[in-house]
């Protein structure tokens, strides 16, 4: 219950002042716990021009458990799993490292920053991470293709 109060406050806040390049809605008007975020690909990255859908699921224990992020749009990125889940592995989203005063808006800002600047040392897709480090040109090429193909 009190978790909902917090979520409602955050939702109201994020509507007033959304993080740059993000449009946030509820996936389903009935459910405050699943947010649907459409994020513009950051400029100066292979993702420019793409629109990425990210689903943010807030556990019922929120804010004492971290939100779960999932890319609904396929994205070629070292830090996003190349599967159905499209999970992005961020340190701040680990159960033990989550801080209750963190806001979802901050999480989304960070997601966009990681999209622009991949962290190959923290990768979940080691193949893409290797390519990013050793053959950045090819990485950028594939990422652009995927953006054009899936993120329209």
């Amino acid at each position, binding site marked *: 219950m009190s978790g909902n109060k917090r979520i409602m*406050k955050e939702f109201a806040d994020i509507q007033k002042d959304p993080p740059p390049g993000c449009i946030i809605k509820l996936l389903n008007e009935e459910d405050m716990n699943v947010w649907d975020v459409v994020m513009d690909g950051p400029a100066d990255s292979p993702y420019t021009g793409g629109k990425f859908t990210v689903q943010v699921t807030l556990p019922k224990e929120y804010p004492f458990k971290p939100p779960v992020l999932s890319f609904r749009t396929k994205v070629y990125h070292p830090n996003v799993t190349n599967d159905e889940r499209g999970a992005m592995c961020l340190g701040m989203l680990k159960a*033990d490292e989550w801080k209750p005063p963190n806001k979802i808006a901050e999480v989304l800002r960070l997601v966009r920053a990681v999209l622009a600047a991949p962290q190959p040392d923290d990768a979940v897709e080691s193949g893409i991470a290797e390519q990013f480090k050793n053959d950045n040109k090819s990485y950028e090429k594939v990422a652009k293709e995927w953006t054009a193909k899936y993120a329209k």
Partner: protein
Amino acid sequence: MAHQASGMSDDDMAALQKLSDDFQPEISGPLVGQREPSTAITAEYASADPVFQAKTASLPQKYSHYRKMRGDGKCGWRAIAFGYFEALIHFGNENKFVEEEARLRSLHNVVNNAGYSPYLYEDFADAVFDILRKLSVSLQIGNAEELLLESFNDETEQNYVITYFKTLTCSWMKAREGDYAPWLPGQSVTAFVDSQVMPIGSEIENVSMSALKDVLLSPASIQLEVLYLDRTDGVEPNMHRFDPQNSAHPIIGSIRLLYRPGHYDIVYKTEDVPQSTTSVQTYLQYHNETHNEPVMDLGMSDFMTMIPGMSYAGPQQSWLPGAGYGYSDYLASPPASMPALVESPELQSRTQSMYIPTPRTQMVPPSDEMPQDMDIRSDHHEETQPHFSGQSQTSPFRSSYYQFEPGFVSATSHVPFKTAIFKNSHFNTAHFLNPDFQPEEWRPEDEPMLMTNHSKGGRHNSFG
């Protein structure tokens, strides 16, 4: 490697490590358990290595009870948070709860300056204020402790409380960076609080504990002690007391933690535990020990002078060998001795005493809880039996000063007195301190009246 430095073989080390690994804090069970006798900890370590055995064996002597925290990595924060509210309950002043809420609210400037948005932390704060208000009200009803236990076993509610206290700790550390930075070599206070205090899975450690104590406990005049139960030499757990900064004010309570590597529980001294769970019966004291009895130290002699007729009796008590009637007997409740008074007029008439002592065997209310004392009592009973047949030297009644003078003759008469107060005072010529001391005479026809006096004077009689 540490074990090489201590000269242990790998096998020894492995064995000790195994024992250490065997200690599993409860990861199921209630978040905060009931208060239990600390002998349970001793039992838990009965088969551990000797150092732990010795340390846990000595534990219950000083710390009678303990309370188990769930070992889920938040036990330290939880134990202090719980202890904070519990100390306020134990202090028992409703205003203190109001004061605390006002004080915490006044800290919100510090929290804002540290960069936390009010709209995020106010939820956490409200949970704490709700508990403070709830407890303040329940103090009168007497169910404060149950309510607190209930709140802390609601995981969400507890998370709010812990997060609020973490927020306060972080804010305080950021505001007083100079105080804490020296303890955090190689990292800034901000980096430390972000990475090691605020994250949900971060357990308390020394610096954050010290900061929590500074912001939450010391200003509330609550003291924090930590007992370290580890394998260092010694027969008792090492105790570290975080002294309140504010030592000018009296302490209203103490939080005592028992630390075993990786885990905190709360321990209690007897005085921290509500009366109902203790069974100390100080009036069961006998014979020579009377002089060492704790009540003597509590200004008992002042108290004595308030009793009519008692003004000079106290100091003379101690030189009488075998004077078995102590202050404690005096405190014993008379009802148990009443039947004896009815039975013993004959006995009283034969002895010199003008006051009507009761045989000590009836002075002490029977106790089921202290069988040893029961034994002692029955010993006395046998030993004092002879006086019932008139041997005044071993009389159960305390001897008078004059009884020890040569030529002392037992009084054979009684003079009835109007009131017990007068009878027991030195204004009574029959009192041995009266300059015109004249022993009472006993006359058979006075007998019924004496009996009345006996029962009235029953409480005072052992101090003739």
